[in-house]
């Protein structure tokens, strides 16, 4: 095993055998390539539906795996993250490079956008430096023909000394030929590359040769030539790996002094010199093999862009698309959601009728069916949202959306692509948090995940409606609008700005982003994309949410004090058999008693006790134990606050005029100031348990998950405190 120590998490995964043993999987093919080279569509073409997102603990970069049986060979296919290069500057590149170095896939298939050979072959050259002979898939071959680009494949293949297969990923052209070649290469072990490549200047070649001659350099299990180049490029991970080895510091000294010497002689930094040499090598090979027609017409992409990124029309078009996406996700999605809800309801009823009234029945109905039902109702939203996002990504629109919104988002330290999670959060935070996956850089993604829950989701609406209606009847509409759309968005931007200035200070990610040509997304690829998200959501969430809802169920039902029930039942019975009261009086009296009993029972349960114990925490905000308990029940889902307030504040449990009576009760228990403060707390604290778990799942870091919970509760507390106490100071009620 090579002592090279690359990314830490990956090394741990290797130890834990997250990757399959080679013996059980005869062939492994890794797909490498630039972003937007059609790698994913080729991956889909090879594996079809037999794929899943690999579980790489601690790494938020998605790595998809699939399998295919080809000519009786079982082949495991790994889709590495799209990268332009194989340095260790970004997580994607680290993951791709570590996989190739440590996993040693039998064949690396380097997917190339054949309409843009020069830049795509830059990665190929780096693979060659690494000692890997890739199989080149010249993808998007149909576009090459349409653009009348002539490529002499045979000659280019000879010049580079690598096999080339032309492919069209979107309609599966030449997939068999590609696999055939890959299997052949693996069997004949023709996947090593030992030639000196690139046209490095003489000074660089000398240093490389000098470094290679040091014996230690050949003990790392990777190509010594590659190590030497990386040392000249000043690659941090290779440096630290070499430093740890015996005699490593001597090697670093040689490399460092050679680098400064080269930079002095050639008047440019080593990184540029090496990059230019690579591009020089590519240009040399392409000069003899590629002929492009003189471009004399405006390309279709430019024509589309003349509207999509137009100075005036860009935003109307963007908001139209966003409106459509939002409507489709939440309005159209409400129909299947309703069906699922009635399905869950039907299941509930069936269990209710079939089982005797026991604790087990209650557990199944409230804990299990309630919990799982609570998740699957989000499925339509997630399916539709990711269907839309897949179309936007595959067509090339996503990059344009980021292009036009980046200025605004960048002001608060975010990326243009953070816009979509922010907007979708107004429907539901859960798909919004998941939509943060479209961000490539881990820092940007983390920031977006942390901020998305601040956007007011539709589940918070019933609380606003209740409070605004009860306390500000004249301005209810405006107040609800402010909370639903304005305050949440404001806190999103303000917190983003605070994060930028504090926690993520100096953590600026480069925006440099390709604007790929517009392409028609294929239905198949969009469907696969959508299904992967849904599957991921169901699999990852199911178990945890189940456990959480059972815990919540236990807490809100136990312990039971049978004395309360007995004593109240006694009182109720005595009212019922009383001869002095009219039947109307009886009904109202038993209603009051039943409601008192529920309240006493709730106070006795775990959630009631925790809520009451938390009262001192809430007291500075003007909240008493009832508010404390209701906020606690809001963890289940924000709209639950309304129903638990029914139990907490209503003296009579009957359904008659319930909404109106609840409003009156709220008006009695809350001053306008206190109610306003309460609404702010509801807006800002952790949205619900499913959203919380989504955040944890997507952050994939214990530290950041804890931070996410703590900062939201702290923020809610501080803001509410400031509003309540500040309001009192200036004499508000």
């Amino acid at each position, binding site marked *: 095993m090579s002592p090279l120590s690359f990314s830490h998490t990956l090394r741990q995964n290797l130890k834990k055998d997250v990757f399959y043993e080679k013996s059980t999987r005869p062939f492994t093919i890794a797909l490498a390539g630039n972003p937007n080279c059609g790698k994913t569509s080729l991956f889909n073409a090879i594996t079809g539906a037999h794929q899943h997102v690999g579980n790489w603990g601690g790494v938020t970069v998605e790595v998809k795996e699939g399998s295919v049986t080809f000519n009786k060979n079982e082949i495991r296919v790994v889709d590495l993250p799209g990268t332009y290069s194989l340095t260790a500057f970004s997580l994607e590149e680290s993951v791709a490079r570590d996989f190739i170095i440590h996993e040693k896939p039998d064949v690396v298939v380097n997917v190339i956008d054949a309409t843009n050979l020069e*830049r795509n072959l830059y990665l190929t050259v780096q693979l060659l430096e690494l000692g890997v002979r890739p199989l080149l898939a010249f993808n998007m071959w149909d576009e090459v023909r349409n653009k009348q680009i002539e490529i002499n494949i045979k000659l280019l293949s000879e010049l580079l000394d690598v096999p080339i297969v032309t492919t069209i990923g979107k309609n599966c052209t030449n997939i068999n030929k590609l696999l055939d070649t890959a299997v052949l290469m693996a069997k004949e072990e023709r996947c090593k590359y030992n030639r000196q490549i690139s046209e490095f200047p003489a000074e660089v070649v000398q240093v490389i040769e000098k470094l290679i001659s040091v014996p230690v350099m050949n003990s790392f299990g990777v190509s010594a030539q590659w190590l030497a180049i990386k040392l000249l490029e000043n690659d941090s991970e290779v440096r630290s790996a070499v430093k740890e080895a015996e005699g490593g510091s001597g090697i670093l000294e040689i490399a460092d002094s050679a680098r400064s010497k080269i930079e002095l002689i050639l008047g440019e930094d080593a990184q540029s010199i090496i990059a230019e040499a690579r*591009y020089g090598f590519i240009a040399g090979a392409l000069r003899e093999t590629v002929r492009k027609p003189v471009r004399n017409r405006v390309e279709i992409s430019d024509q589309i862009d003349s509207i999509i990124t137009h100075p005036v029309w860009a935003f109307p078009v963007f908001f139209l698309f966003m409106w459509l996406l939002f409507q489709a996700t939440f309005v159209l999605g409400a129909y299947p959601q309703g069906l699922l809800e009635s399905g869950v309801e039907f299941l509930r009823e069936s269990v209710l009728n079939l089982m005797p009234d026991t604790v087990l029945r209650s557990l199944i109905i409230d804990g299990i069916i309630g919990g799982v039902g609570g998740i699957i109702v989000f499925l339509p939203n997630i399916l539709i949202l990711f269907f839309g996002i897949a179309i936007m990504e595959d067509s090339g629109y996503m990059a344009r959306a980021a292009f036009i919104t980046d200025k605004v988002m960048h002001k608060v330290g975010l990326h243009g692509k953070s816009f979509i999670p922010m907007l979708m959060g107004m429907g539901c935070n859960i798909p919004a948090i998941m939509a943060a996956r479209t961000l490539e850089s881990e820092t940007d993604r983390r920031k977006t995940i942390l901020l998305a829950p601040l956007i007011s989701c539709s589940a918070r609406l019933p609380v606003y409606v209740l409070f605004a209606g009860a306390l500000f009847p004249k301005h209810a509409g405006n107040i609800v609008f402010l909370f639903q759309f304005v305050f949440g968005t404001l806190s999103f931007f303000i917190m983003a700005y605070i994060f930028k200035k504090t926690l993520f200070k100096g953590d600026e990610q480069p925006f440099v982003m390709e604007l790929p040509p517009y392409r028609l997304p294929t239905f198949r690829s969009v469907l696969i994309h959508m299904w992967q998200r849904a599957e991921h959501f169901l699999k990852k969430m199911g178990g945890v949410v189940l456990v959480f809802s059972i815990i919540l169920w236990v807490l809100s039902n136990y312990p039971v004090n049978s004395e309360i029930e007995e004593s109240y039942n006694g009182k109720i019975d005595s009212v019922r058999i009383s001869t002095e009261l009219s039947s109307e009086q009886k009904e109202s009296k038993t209603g009051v008693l039943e409601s008192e009993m529920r309240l006493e029972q709730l106070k006795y349960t775990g959630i009631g006790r925790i809520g009451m114990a938390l009262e001192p925490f809430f007291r500075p905000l003007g909240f008493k134990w009832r508010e404390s308990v209701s906020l606690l029940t809001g963890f289940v889902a924000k709209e639950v606050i309304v129903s638990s307030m029914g139990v907490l504040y209503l003296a009579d449990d009957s359904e008659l005029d319930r909404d109106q009576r609840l409003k009156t009760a709220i008006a009695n228990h809350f001053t306008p100031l206190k109610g306003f403060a309460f609404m702010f707390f509801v807006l800002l604290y952790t949205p619900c348990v499913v959203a919380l778990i989504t955040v944890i799942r997507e952050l994939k870091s214990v530290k950041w998950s804890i931070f996410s919970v703590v900062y939201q509760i702290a923020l809610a507390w501080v803001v509410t405190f400031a509003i309540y106490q500040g309001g009192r100071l200036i004499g508000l009620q």
Partner: protein
Amino acid sequence: MKKSAVMDLSSCMEGDLVKIVRIRGDSLIRKRLIEMGFLRGRVLKIVKYAPLKDPVEVEVGGSHVSLRVCEAAGIDVEPVY
């Protein structure tokens, strides 16, 4: 006054054709630019600025790339006539 022709990319106009003289800026952005083909001597076309005047879209070696204006400011260019 021929030497003063060198300017930074962020001061270019839409439709300008320029040649890269040097890339300054921090190593992460530099490296990303270099690997995407922003090399000394290459010709860049400033395609357009975003509606809010930031970022800017340029064409280099056949691909379209968008950069923030602050990133473009780190690229020294000279006009191509």
